[in-house]
């Protein structure tokens, strides 16, 4: 099963090849792509974890919280992936500057609003880690 994921990652990386040079130079976009692939890997790995947990029918106390953690983490990954992707399409005019600092955003429709929400990803990440905390606390208590 892990081999499948490695192959999938390789296929994705090969889908958008850049110029093949003897010593390839890595531009600024490559960082975003690599990060996004990281998110995807992260998401797939979490999904795989959820699958295995589900398959093994582990229902003990603590594992439920852990599964919530994983689900929240998947959501977070998707949200942040979306945020990173949308950032490429949001023009500078959308941002309101005051004294050289970002002060607001001009939201003109659902797309802008969605982008605004992706900036609030901690609303998912903090509960996720709270769930992990609960799961670990329960496991420790039970042991």
């Amino acid at each position, binding site marked *: 099963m892990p081999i499948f994921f490695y192959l999938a990652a390789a296929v994705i990386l090969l889908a958008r090849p850049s110029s093949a040079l003897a010593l390839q130079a890595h531009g600024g976009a490559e*960082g975003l792509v*690599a*990060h996004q692939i990281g998110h995807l890997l*992260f998401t797939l790995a979490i999904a795989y974890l959820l699958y295995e947990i589900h398959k093994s029918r582990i229902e003990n106390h603590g594992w439920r919280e852990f599964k919530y953690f994983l689900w929240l983490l998947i959501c977070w990954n998707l949200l942040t992936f979306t945020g990173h992707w949308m950032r490429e399409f949001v023009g500078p005019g959308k941002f309101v500057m005051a004294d050289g600092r970002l002060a607001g955003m001009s939201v003109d429709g659902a797309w802008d609003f969605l982008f605004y929400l992706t900036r609030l990803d901690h609303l998912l990440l903090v509960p996720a*880690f709270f769930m*992990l905390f609960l799961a670990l606390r329960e496991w420790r208590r039970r042991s």
Partner: protein
Amino acid sequence: MIFSWTPVVVADMGGSLATVILAVFCAYYSFKWHQARANDIFRHYICLLTITFVLFAVSRSVGHLLKQILQLSDLNHVWAAISPFSGAVNTATFVIVASFSLYFNRMQKVHTEIEGYKTGLEKLVEERTRQLAEANLRLETVLESANPICLMNLDFEILRANKAYYDIWPKTAGRGKPLKCFESRPGASCNTPACPINQIAAGKQEMVNQFSKELADGKSGEFIITARPFRDASGNLAGIVESFQDITTQVNATRELLAEREQLGVTLRSIGDGVITTDIGGTIVLLNKGAEKITGWSQSEVVGRKLDEVFNLPDRDPGVTVENWLKEICYQDSVSGGAPKRLKKKDGSVRLVSENGAFIRNMESEIAGVVLVFRDVTEKSKTEEELSKIKKLESLGILAGGIAHDFNNILTAIMGNISLARLRMESSDERYQLLSSAEKACDRAKNLTHQLLTFAKGGEPIKNLATIKEIIEDSAGFVLRGSNVQCDYVFADDLWNVEVDKGQISQVVQNIILNASAAMAGGGTITVKCANHYHHRDTAVLKAGPYVKVSISDRGSGIPGEQLEKIFDPFFTTKKTGSGLGLAITYSIITSHGGHIEVASEPGVGSTFTFYLPASVKTVRADGHKERAEALNAKGSGRIMIMDDDEMIRELVANMLAGFGYEVVAVRDGTEAVCLYREAMAGGEPIAAVIMDLTIPGGMGGKDAAREIHKIDPEARLIVASGYSNDPVMAGYRDYGFSAAMIKPFRLEDLQKVLRQVFS
């Protein structure tokens, strides 16, 4: 619509801070959870996975916080420089998390397998632990319920011992180190090569010893110690196991059994009765000392022989098998069993025995053999015969005595009157000769009466000290005078004296010599031996004490066996003219002297009569029996009283005394005699002597009258006269106050002799 960016900044900073805090807590709990089971690989994996999440959260949150802080601090160019690193680190954490996540399945499987193995192992360990506990419990139960047992290592330390062991050898109180065996129970083999541990260490597989131990109650306990090697799981010698078997009860029982056997053995050897035990087939197993003495066989000779060879009864029916004979003995009653039977000894001699038998039964009550108990009753039978003989003589004596008494009175009157009649005649007178013949006939009658009385114990001997040598020589010489038989005398030099009635013993010797002489019709020599004999113990026929033993042997025809038992019976004779009283009287005289007579005879060889007379320590006075030769016709003077219930006697004695010149006072009984004696004393004409009949029917007899007269006159001379020569008064007359005794019938000469004795 302008949305303020402040909520985004606040959420980003607050969320990052909260995420960092939560991540730290998560790392802490994960670590603690893992530490609770550090060897649990799944926990280890989850812990590592959590750390990757924490790493992700911290790296991201720190980056976001740094970003916000730098931007708020107008340091955007710094953040622009750091940002690629923060993002890259964040991306790397994604990869790390992803990488760790991929091992969840593997780790879970490993975990499941390990948990399965672990659970299985735990169950196995639990099962084995339970089995071990049960085995230990069983071993412990066996150990504690067993005999004393202890386990020691090669350093002599007691590793384990049960309660029974410590009950005998208590633990030393207050010990901090293991107890050594030589401290617990020091013994002679400690520190020697004989020590069981040393022996087992040297290769022995088992050591068995026995020892004694004083127990808490003060009694001695006996134990058998068995020592065996004790090996560890690898088979190496680790020590020894010693078990102690208490055999005190068995040892005590064995000792008691041995003591009982010894006691039985001593009893069997000590008892005088013969005891023979046989098996059921009659083969002899045991013969005690008594049986050896009676049968003449020794134990070593008879073992394995049949009973009838050793216990040889000639009169037993030879047609009866030994087995049946044994059954007869065991089933016979005590009466028939006690009847004497003839037993032929090994040397051929015959003894009389009475026997009884009983079956010997084994533990299953089956007959295993027979015990035969018998005793030699030869002497007892002889004694019984002797007693029977004595009883017969006593019965006959009573009869004879009664007749003789009256007959004596009659004879006294006849003889006395004949004597008086003769005194009044001339010897040339024809009637004088006729009276002399009549007197001789009376003498013979007197002798016969005397013999009857003697036989009937009437001859209670009037004993005087004498030497047996003189009596024998006089008597034998008198009898053998003129015959073709001579006598050889063998007298011991220091022959003891005897106190005997010389007349009676003379009669004994004469009777035996006469019989011996008659047995040697063709002449020969009679050997008379006299010796001192000391009888050491009381028997039925002789009391212990000194005796003079007289043996008279002839070489005549001997006496057949069937006659030998009867020769002392009254009226038994083999002579045509014999009265059959000679040897009966002899027997009576010897027994009345406190002696014993026996005879041994072998037909064709001769007979030996042996009699024993009690010896006396007194010496015979040289002038003790000086005869007083006074003339028969010497005259007396004075008053003499005659006391007799028989008028005929009174008249006769009065005539005799008157003939001697005495004045006679005749009285009928003792009362009259005492009265007249008193009157005579008072009247100045005292009575010089009183002749008193011992027995006065219906009146005071001589004994009582003598006592009364002595009260009046202690110096009174009293003469007792009686036909009852067996009366003790006649033998010991002095003890009753009499000066002399006179046996009826008496002649004139006898009367005069007694008077001389009294007045001398």
